[in-house]
């Protein structure tokens, strides 16, 4: 392999612009007063404030985890501002009252919030820095009894549901970042699909970090009641900045008996420049709980962020429940990703399926970390894991850390792993047939990712494929 296969130019990150808008931003620093201030700004009931304070006190006893295969300078949690909201945002107002500047921002991102130009068949909740600035198709969904709104709104209007399910899958004490999130999270999305209802459209949240020196701590809670079905998409971008920004989100999914939740992410936070300056630290806890005959399916395409640390997991609590994890993680330049899943088999005859595709280019480091656990009572558990890595050039790395714990001897667990390298020969073959080097790489890579892309909803599959092309642009010369 000659050095000609590398040369990292990288196309400009096209979402790196900043919106100039007046914001209500808390000064940097974190203490109980800040937690109280956030809760007050959100006009939260007492149970929320108590929960936040418990989380904050717990967080103070925890230390930042460093077992993952990533390196970064120590974070100063007192230098971050924990709340920033556009001054003009009216969390409960109608979409028509949306600040034109914010509307423009979403237009530029390709997420139109105008009622007449809505994405066909996709309802969108737009989160700008710390708050949700608008949710589309709300009325339409209401007809089916579906609640889709910002978290803040859910706390006001459906406090019972929030109190019942908040922290039921990811407790505030779960880990350092989950505790931090529980203490200071400012908004996010909330979904409730009632018994037996099949949500008629894709629901989606679009997260945008705009303000400088802030962290984004959103929380998403999705509850599918018995026999319900919902498919949910999440997209994210942030401006280009030379300082790193922290994004510590929590997503909880609850699939009651016979319910299905499908959660797809296209993560394109700013990844930093070629030399690794700037970019988002994406430290996220995502987990779902599947009850009897329920199914939870995670699909993620991770192309952005300087560092990604996330393990969308499924607790297979009910008998015959199913968990799926389909992942494409791409690192280029100096990006680092440590991502994978946990499948915890508790019920009988539970099934899990893991397909992970890691692509490393430049100096990128990509780790798959996955746990498959079968508890003593979980008879008839079945897991299949496929973990493939692709290397572009010879300065990057791919690592695999599978943890398999089977405590029931009826379990069948399979793990297959492969590592391949985009070869000069593959690229030459495609060039000889008339394709450019970039087209060749994009074709080879999307072939490699096909099993995951086919799990994405149509609207996202194409976007994901294009994104992959952009992320890897210039990685082969």
């Amino acid at each position, binding site marked *: 392999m000659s050095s000609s296969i590398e040369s990292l130019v990288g196309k400009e990150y096209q979402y790196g612009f900043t919106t100039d808008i007046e914001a209500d931003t808390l000064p940097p620093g974190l203490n109980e007063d800040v937690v109280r201030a956030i809760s007050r700004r959100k006009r939260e009931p007492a149970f929320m404030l108590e929960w936040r304070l418990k989380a904050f006190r717990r967080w103070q006893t925890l230390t930042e985890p460093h077992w993952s295969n990533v390196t970064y300078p120590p974070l100063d949690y007192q230098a971050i501002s924990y709340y920033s909201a556009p001054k003009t945002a009216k969390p409960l107002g109608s979409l028509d009252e949306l600040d034109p500047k914010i509307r423009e921002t979403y237009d530029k991102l390709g997420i139109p919030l105008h009622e007449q130009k809505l994405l066909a068949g996709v309802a969108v909740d737009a989160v700008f820095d710390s708050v949700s600035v608008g949710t589309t198709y709300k009325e339409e969904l209401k007809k089916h009894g579906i609640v889709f709104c910002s978290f803040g709104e859910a706390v006001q209007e459906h406090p019972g549901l929030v109190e019942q399910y908040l922290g039921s899958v990811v407790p505030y004490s779960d880990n350092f970042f989950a505790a931090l999130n529980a203490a200071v999270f400012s908004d996010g999305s909330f979904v409730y699909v009632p018994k037996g209802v099949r949500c008629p459209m894709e629901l989606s949240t679009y997260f945008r970090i705009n303000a400088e020196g802030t962290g984004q701590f959103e929380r998403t809670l999705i509850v599918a009641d018995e026999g319900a079905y919902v498919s949910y998409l999440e997209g994210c971008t942030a401006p280009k900045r030379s300082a790193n920004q922290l994004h510590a989100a929590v997503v909880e999914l609850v699939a009651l008996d016979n319910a299905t939740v499908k959660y797809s992410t296209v993560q394109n936070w700013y990844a930093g420049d070629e030399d690794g300056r700037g970019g988002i630290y994406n430290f996220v806890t995502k987990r779902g709980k599947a009850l009897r005959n329920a199914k939870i399916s995670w699909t993620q395409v991770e192309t952005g962020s300087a560092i990604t640390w996330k393990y969308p997991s499924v607790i297979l609590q009910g008998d015959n429940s199913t968990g799926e994890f389909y992942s494409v993680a791409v690192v280029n330049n100096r990006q680092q990703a440590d991502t994978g899943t946990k499948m915890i088999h508790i019920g009988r005859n539970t099934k899990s399926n893991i397909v992970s595709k890691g692509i490393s280019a430049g100096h990128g480091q990509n780790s798959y970390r996955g746990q498959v656990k079968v508890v003593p009572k979980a008879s008839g558990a079945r897991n299949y894991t496929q973990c493939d890595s692709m290397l572009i050039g010879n300065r990057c790395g791919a690592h695999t850390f599978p943890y398999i714990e089977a405590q029931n001897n009826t379990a069948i667990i399979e793990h297959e792993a492969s590592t391949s390298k985009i070869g000069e020969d593959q690229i030459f073959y495609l060039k000889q047939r008339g394709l*450019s080097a970039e087209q060749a790489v994009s074709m080879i890579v999307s072939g490699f990712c096909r099993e995951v892309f086919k799990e994405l909803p149509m609207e996202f599959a194409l976007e994901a494929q294009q994104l992959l092309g952009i992320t890897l642009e210039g990685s082969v010369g």
Partner: protein
Amino acid sequence: MLTIDGLRATAGDREILRGITMSVAAGEVHAIMGPNGSGKSTLAQVLAGHPGYEVTGGTVEYDGRDLLAMEPEERAHAGIFLAFQYPVEIPGVSNAYFLRTAFNEIRKARGEEEIDPMDFLDVMAERLKLVDMDEAMLQRSVNSGFSGGEKKRNEILQMAVLEPRLAILDETDSGLDIDALRVVADGVNALRRPENATIVVTHYQRLLNYIVPDYVHVLANGRIVKSGGKELALDLEARGYDWLIDEPRTAGAGA
């Protein structure tokens, strides 16, 4: 159409081509023969622009253009097609999608309009017959899990679809049984046109029974040691290569 003059090329620090001179006119079929390690495949790869070789001397003119200054994809757009000795696997990419992309890239480069997937299927149906391939092949990943014979037929299918001006077949006969050999040869013959040319690189005379060349060149140690008509191939079959080679072969030179 193609004029090669004094072409020299190295792979790493080994010199493999040591001054090749030959020319190919439209309508002609040239066979390049020679023992293993003589530089036959290197010549094919260098003409297609493989980055693993460095051209250290000589010129190649193709339709009045400096071929060596062109990127591999530009050569493809200009009608040069290499049927690979070892076709490369591209897992997860369907043969149909790959072929349509290649077909459209070449059309775009020629200022023609792209073809849509439905029309392309019609084009394919007809070309598949030429190489006796089943439509199911189109949905399989490019060369992935193909048998040796299927890979070679897939190369000829691509050639049939892309309709090159200058086709270079690199050891297309290696690993083929006699029936597959005939299918491949029939395909190549069906694609012969007065305005096109073909270079057939082969170790054995066998293929030349089916694809009859106008000229035969014998390569040894990176040089053409003898050129002649189709009867030269028969001579080689009977007498081997040794009588043509007066200097010792370079050990290990790439075939």
